């Protein structure tokens, strides 16, 4: 065969070989190896699933709080606020009591108004909650000065 045919062929072969070598080192071993899957042929690093599984859990749930703060958990479970998780007001526990040592409690008026601003919506459960007009009902005051969040009904205090 003539030289001018072989030369470009060598260039192509070298190019392909180079590509295969680069690809061998650049593509991780776990790329695109997942069994099953969908139309996307699983072009992804399988080990990334582990990265997401190891993400830090911050909201630990009432059961975790209850282990130490049994009385506080019992008091709110006995009130109309039983549906509210501890961490919604007390903040995410993360690794409490090690880190953080103390949790900052959200006792702001805004926190209470999330549910207790009266909104006149006939097709939402919102209008069935006990609600106030924030402009009218002791504006500027902190709700917790009168209402105990763990026992919010003033008549039962």
């Amino acid at each position, binding site marked *: 065969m003539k030289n001018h045919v072989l030369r470009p*062929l060598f260039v192509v072969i070298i190019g392909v070989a180079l590509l295969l070598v680069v690809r061998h080192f650049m593509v991780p071993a776990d790329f695109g190896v997942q069994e*099953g899957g969908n139309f996307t042929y*699983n*072009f*992804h690093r399988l080990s990334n699933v582990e990265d997401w599984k190891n993400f830090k859990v911050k*909201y630990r749930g009432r059961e975790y709080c209850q282990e130490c703060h049994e009385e506080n958990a019992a008091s709110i479970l006995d009130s109309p606020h039983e549906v509210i*998780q501890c961490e*919604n007001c007390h903040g995410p526990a993360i690794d409490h009591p090690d880190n953080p040592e103390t949790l900052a409690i959200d006792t702001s008026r805004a926190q209470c*108004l*999330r549910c207790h601003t009266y909104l006149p919506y006939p097709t939402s459960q919102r209008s069935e909650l006990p609600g106030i007009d924030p402009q009218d009902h002791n504006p500027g005051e902190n709700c917790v000065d009168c209402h105990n969040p763990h026992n919010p009904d003033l008549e039962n205090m």
Partner: protein
Amino acid sequence: MSCSRRDLLKNTFKATLASTLPLSAFKMLSPAQVKASVGDANVRWVFLVDTQKCVGCGLCVKACKNENEVPYDPPITRTWVERYVLMKNGQSHIESPFGGRDGYTDTSIHENEIPADQIAKGFFVSKLCNQCKKPACVQVCPVGATYQTLDGVVLVDRKWCIGCGYCIMACPYGMRFFHPVHKVAEKCTFCYHRIIKGMKTACVQNCPFEARLIGNLKDPNDPVTKIIMNQRVSVLKDEYGTKPQVYYIGLDTNVR
């Protein structure tokens, strides 16, 4: 130089063979590993939103941002709550300031006072990634950074993502956004780190009214599966064909 027709055909055939053989060594596609659908996994995570129960407190959005380290103040969020107020005259007021992170504590919308006696319907709809069965965001990713796990959750590989934003454009639901810290595409993961440990997602756990539920569609005894199978539920933007897996109770035509 002379070249007979016979030689030309012969050489063409050889050259074709020579160029196709090394290509097969690429193993770009391994069809044995590609199955038509998720056949093996016995878990398929699905979500159920009951708009009748949602009161718009926004505690789910707050919990999600804290749990998943989404910057708190920029107007980005993995999940959000929309307020719909539909008037008797056909007018509609729809808003979601900061994704409803601070709840809805005012009767006025966009600084318009809404007369209570004119309201026909008022309700809240929470939105999050639909973890589609046929995710458009996964299809368009040019580098294989986003993918679907066998239990149906779409995740983003933060090391692999180049931040091109194709997926942000492709999502029909506008669920994806650009993470300002990691500089990659960001999305709801159904709190994958929690659900695989048997916990609920942060938004489900912190919803006081059980307006949000997560379940396993492949478990016939799962309470969420029972509702999806036996009650009247709907999904958002079915017409896009992505087969969304967040089901809604009590949707209205005004909800898109």
